Each structure stands twice: as structure tokens, then as C-alpha cells.
């Protein structure tokens, strides 16, 4: 159906009902007025069952496609520093860029619980568009389903992303070598702490804001300054501890980090102190760990600090020959301990 044959549909309902998932006019109203209107771009204008895409970067000999997918559920849907839509865009974009890909296109599928406020959907769609613009990607295809009350928690979003990796790039978690320096671009655990506070279970009032942001600009700047960059990982669920453990295991190196230099905001530390949690395991949505050869470390940190997402970039440790596969923390007091993968969720302690 060609959009110019009729005026765009308008959605007058204030709340989503099962009718909006029925495949009829009500659904078309919802999709066109909320999602197409927000995401509008040349890739999706045709309203075909598939997006049809071209990009010059794909024609370079040796270029590879990067393709990733992720599902997003978060409670609450909106929180200081973002919402589920912004995370759904940033999370998938960041999974592409830490592999050295230039992100190009996203898909977005929504599972919506009946009764959700249409105004909330519009806010989320607008925030996805803003995040996509910031990241330089287009949302080119999508889907909407509505389920009965109780069958989903307000809104679930799944996004997939496609990017292009230039022929000369080969970042991989298995490429880290002893001596390489581990760098993080910002404070650890802000997202996890912000979400816990926003749930309101603890009656704490803090200023803490999720770090949710796209990291493409940061990665490109870092790669320009440190072309030998070996590997980067987005430190989302499981936090920096999990990202470091994955890299140690994949590369067969040991990793030593230093507690005294870990960038932590007072608010995130405070939440962790109260609940007995370790900020190394708190989720981030705009924080990565990059490993670069020692000779490029200073340049990489400086390049990160010149970007918005990397103002507090800092080297936190390095890869070593000893204890392959194991991450060791040198504590502030001079002690040492292993930083293992998390078993399940971190659970607040009794006392």
C-alpha cells in the first residue's frame, strides 16, 4: 500500500485494547500514528512486509555484515536517564559497535499489554527515534502484538540490528594478549543502581541517572586513536565483572584490576553499601570495557575522554600471563581476591 494514496491514519484511543492487535483498522491506526510517524525514514516508507536496504559500505570488498538481536524487559518502563525504548535502541546499537561495526538499521517488535496508555507508547516511540538519530541508525521495520492483561508487563520490545564491519577491522574477545590494558569509558553500575532506586522499594532519594546511551561515536574515536584495539565488550547484564570474565576465558589470559581506580559514583556506591551488592556486577547500558595494546592505551583513554560518553574513561587494569581465565582484583587495602562470574541475580542481604 502506498502511503500517498490516502491521508495517514490517526489514533484516537487513549489506551491500547486487544483490537489494536487484531490486524484490522485499529491496528493500522496504532502502527501508523504511533510508530511509523515517530520512526519515519526512507527505508520504511513503502509499508511492504520487508525493508529494502542499500548502503555504499556494503559494496566495499571484504566488508562484513554484523547482525545482532536482543529482547528488552525493564521495570519500571521509564526511569531517570531513559526508558525501555531508549535501552532497546542503545542496547542493540552497542552490541554492534563493540564489534567494530558501523550500525545502520534496526528492527523493533513490540509486545504490548492491553490497557497500556497510548501517551506512554508515544513517549517511548519518540525516545527511540531520538536515540536512533543520536546513534545514526534508522528503524526500518517492525511489528506490534497486543496481549491480554497479565500476559505481559506493560511493554516488551525486541530489536535486531544490522551494521557493517570495515574490511580492516577484526575485534574479538579471543584476541587479547598479556600486557594489554583494560579501559572503561565511565562510571560503573549507574544503570543498575538507577533502576533499583526507580523501583521505589527502598524509599531512597538520589540523583542517580542511568548511563543508557549509544557508544558508536566513542568506539570510532577510540579506534581512530588506538587502531590496535583488540576487543571491546558492552558491560550490560552481569556488569563489568562478567565482561572481564568472558574476555579472560576467550583469550586465555589472566586479568588484574585495581579497586582504587574503578570509576564509581557516590550514589551507586551508596546503594551497594546499603544492600550489600558489588558494583562490579551491576548492569550498565552505556559502559564498555576495551582492551588495547599497552603502547596505545594513553591515546585510547584520551580519545574516549574527548567524547561525551567517555568523559571519565580510565584504565582499570591489564591482561597478564598468570592465572589464565581468572580475573583478580587488587583491593584498596592491598589484598587480592578473585572476581568470578555471578551465579544468579545479586540478592540484597538480610542485615
Amino acid at each position, binding site marked *: 500500500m502506498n502511503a500517498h494514496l490516502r491521508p495517514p491514519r490517526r489514533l484516537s484511543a487513549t489506551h491500547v485494547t486487544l483490537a489494536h492487535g487484531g490486524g484490522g483498522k485499529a491496528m493500522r491506526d496504532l502502527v501508523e500514528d504511533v510508530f511509523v510517524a515517530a520512526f519515519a525514514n526512507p527505508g520504511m516508507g513503502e509499508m511492504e512486509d520487508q525493508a529494502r536496504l542499500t548502503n555504499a559500505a556494503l559494496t566495499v570488498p571484504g566488508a562484513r555484515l554484523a547482525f545482532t538481536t536482543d529482547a528488552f524487559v525493564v521495570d519500571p518502563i521509564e526511569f531517570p536517564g531513559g526508558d525501555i525504548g531508549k535501552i532497546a535502541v542503545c542496547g542493540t546499537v552497542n552490541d554492534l559497535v563493540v564489534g567494530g561495526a558501523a550500525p545502520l538499521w534496526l528492527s523493533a517488535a513490540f509486545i504490548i499489554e492491553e490497557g497500556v496508555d497510548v501517551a506512554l507508547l508515544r513517549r517511548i516511540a519518540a525516545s527511540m527515534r531520538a536515540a536512533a538519530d543520536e546513534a545514526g541508525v534508522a528503524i526500518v521495520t517492525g511489528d506490534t502484538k497486543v496481549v491480554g492483561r497479565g500476559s505481559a508487563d506493560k511493554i516488551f520490545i525486541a530489536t535486531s540490528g544490522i551494521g557493517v564491519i570495515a574490511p580492516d577491522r577484526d575485534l574479538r574477545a579471543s584476541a587479547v594478549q598479556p600486557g594489554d590494558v583494560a579501559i572503561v569509558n565511565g562510571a560503573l553500575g549507574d544503570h543498575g543502581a538507577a533502576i533499583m532506586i526507580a523501583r521505589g522499594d527502598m524509599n531512597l532519594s538520589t540523583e542517580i541517572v542511568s548511563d543508557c546511551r549509544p557508544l558508536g561515536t566513542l568506539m570510532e574515536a577510540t579506534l581512530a586513536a588506538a587502531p590496535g584495539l583488540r576487543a571491546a565488550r558492552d558491560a550490560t547484564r552481569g556488569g563489568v565483572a562478567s565482561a572481564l570474565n568472558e574476555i579472560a576465558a576467550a583469550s586465555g589470559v589472566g586479568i588484574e584490576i585495581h579497586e582504587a581506580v574503578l570509576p564509581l559514583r557516590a550514589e551507586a556506591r551508596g546503594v551497594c553499601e546499603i544492600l550489600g551488592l558489588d558494583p562490579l556486577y551491576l548492569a550498565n547500558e552505556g559502559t564498555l570495557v576495551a582492551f588495547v595494546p599497552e603502547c596505545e592505551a594513553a591515546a585510547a583513554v584520551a580519545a574516549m575522554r574527548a567524547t561525551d560518553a567517555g568523559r571519565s574513561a580510565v584504565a582499570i587494569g591489564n591482561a597478564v600471563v598468570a592465572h589464565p581465565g581468572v580475573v583478580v582484583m587488587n583491593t584498596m587495602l592491598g589484598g587480592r*581476591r578473585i572476581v568470578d562470574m555471578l551465579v544468579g541475580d545479586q540478592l540484597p542481604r538480610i542485615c
Partner: protein
Amino acid sequence: MKYVDEFRDPFAARGVLAAIARTVDAIGAIKEKPIHIMEICGGHTHAIFRYGLDKLTPPGLEFIHGPGCPVCVLPMPRVDEAVEIAERNGVIFTTFGDAMRVPGTKKSLLQAKADGADIRMVYSPLDALDLARRNPNRDIVFFGLGFETTTPSTALSIQQAAAERLTNFSVFCNHITVPPPIKALLDDPFMILDGFVGPGHVSMVIGTHPYDFIARDYGKPIVVAGFEPLVLLQSVLMVLTQISEGRAEVENQYARIVPEHGNPISIAACNDVYEPRDSFEWRGLGEIDKSGLKIREKYAAFDAERKFGIGYAIASRALAEPDGCRCGDVMTGRIKPRACPKFGRDCTPEAPLGALMVSSEGACAAYYQYGGAQLEDVA
């Protein structure tokens, strides 16, 4: 961060560590014949490993990790009973987060929740009380767990529920007290302990006098300590100093928080609401006289045991620990966690077999998570 960083100052720590090393030398303790100090509280165990303090103290000093991890010592039949209550129609079962993963003989609360029981994590019994007010048609049960640290807040919530005449709030009481297991450990014929680091938050409630028997009757020093690494080290030094000077006293390093006579309001609330059980089972240690609390008759309406017909009957709970599990030997200091044949093989934090692997404050879980002896292999 103010009031935190002062207690983690590496330069101050170096001075205390040097003094600890000198005192251990003066006592003449060496790796083969070390001084054994028990930190009673799981919070201290966690701090020792989290800051790597065991790697900083001399080999002539050995920490023995005490029974003060309330989640670890919770007997499996009590978890089964908690699950049984939680799975009843109309019940909302509320619990502290770290009790969710404790295994029962059949399942944990986390598994029961997945199977459909309405189980919710709360940060305080007052949150559970609030749920009761907001859900008059549901039965809200709070899983009362922990030592004297959490015992008063549960007591206050019961008093409050009584004052408001709430009929849909009750407590499944598993509160336990610190001094009885210490006495049990000291009465153990194989006892090797030379001194104790006493629990800070517990003592904030009960004061320091309940520990008098340790110095008076058993001739062992005890120093009540806070949880920051520096004050913990300072307290260890105070214990060692007593040993080197041949003293055995109750000292209070945590005087900024712990009053000698405790908190009279908390003590009064506890005396009003609870009375001691004749005996209570500790996972890994067995039955210990007068070590558990039950809700008094006057508050029977708020006692989940009575409300749901679940009694604490010793005869029914002759449940042996899993074969080969040596938690009791670890807790009494006879072996280190890694000497247990199950450690890291059949017993891991993912699938804990024994009590001490259950919570991050358990000695085995701390060893597993933070390395313990494994770190000596790698470092």
C-alpha cells in the same frame, strides 16, 4: 564517600597490619601452629574475603569462620515449611532477598515462586505490614529470619500489627540468637579457638554483656567489631594484644555504634514478643539449647506456625545433612572449606549442597567466590 573512605584508608591499614604481624610474632605463632581467631558474623567473613584481608595477615594467624550467617544455618525442613505456607491459597509470602535461594529438601522459595506461589522480596518486615494493609483479602506472611540484628524490627512489626488489629499478618519465626552457638562451640572438646571477633550490628542491639561468659568462663578474649576493613583489622589486633598480654576480656572496638547495655527499646520489644524455644536446629551444627525464638502466646494471632498449623517438632526433623557434607567441621574450625571433598565439585554456589555454600556470607561461598586458597595457586 564520607564515613566510608576513612575506614578503608590503605596507609592506615598498613600500620595496623604491621602491628598485627609484630604481635603474632611476639606470641610465637607460626603457620604450622597458628593462632585461631573466629569472626562470628557472616558480615565479617564477607568483608575479610571482599577486601582480601586473609592475604594480608601473617601465616601465623588463621581466621575461623563462625556460624553468624543466618541464611546458611537455616535448617532445610524450615525452608520446606516456608514453601508449604507460601504455596497455600491466598498467601503472599514475603522474605529478605538472600533467603530466596536457600535450598529445602524439595525446593527453594525461588523455585516455589516460579511454580506459581506469590512470594515477594521485601527490605523490612514493615514493607510486609504495608502489604497487609493494602491487601485485606490476602494473608501476608513474613519470613522472620536472622539474629538480634533483625529480631527487633520483626517484633516491632508484630506489635504494630496488634495495635492496628490486623488479622491478615503473621510471622514465620526463625529468629536465632548469637550467644548459644558460641557456647556450644566453646564446649566442643576439639575446640581450637584462641579468641573471637564479635558481631557489630548484633551487639548494637544486645550490648556487650551477653559475651561476658566467653572471657569469664572460658578465658577467651572477644572484641566487638564494625564491618569496615580497617576497624575489622583493628579489632583483630586488639584480640591478638589480649592474647599476647595473657588477658581475656570483652572489649568494644565499635563503641561509636555499640552501647555497653545495647538498645533498651529493642530489647524490651523482643522480650514482649518472643520467648526462647527449648531448642532449635542449626544447619551444620545440629540442635542447640535455647538458641531460637518463638512468638509468645499473647501474640499467637500473628504466629504463622500456629495460624497454619506448623509446629516446631524435633522428632520430625532428624534429617541428616547430605552424605559427605562437612559444614559442621568447617564451622568449628576443624577443616578449611577446600578440605571438604564436596567443595567446588558437588557443592557450588549454583547448586549448594551444604549450608556454608548457600549465602555470600557463608565461609564456603566466600572461599569459592573470592578465591581463598585457589588464589594462592594462581597468584
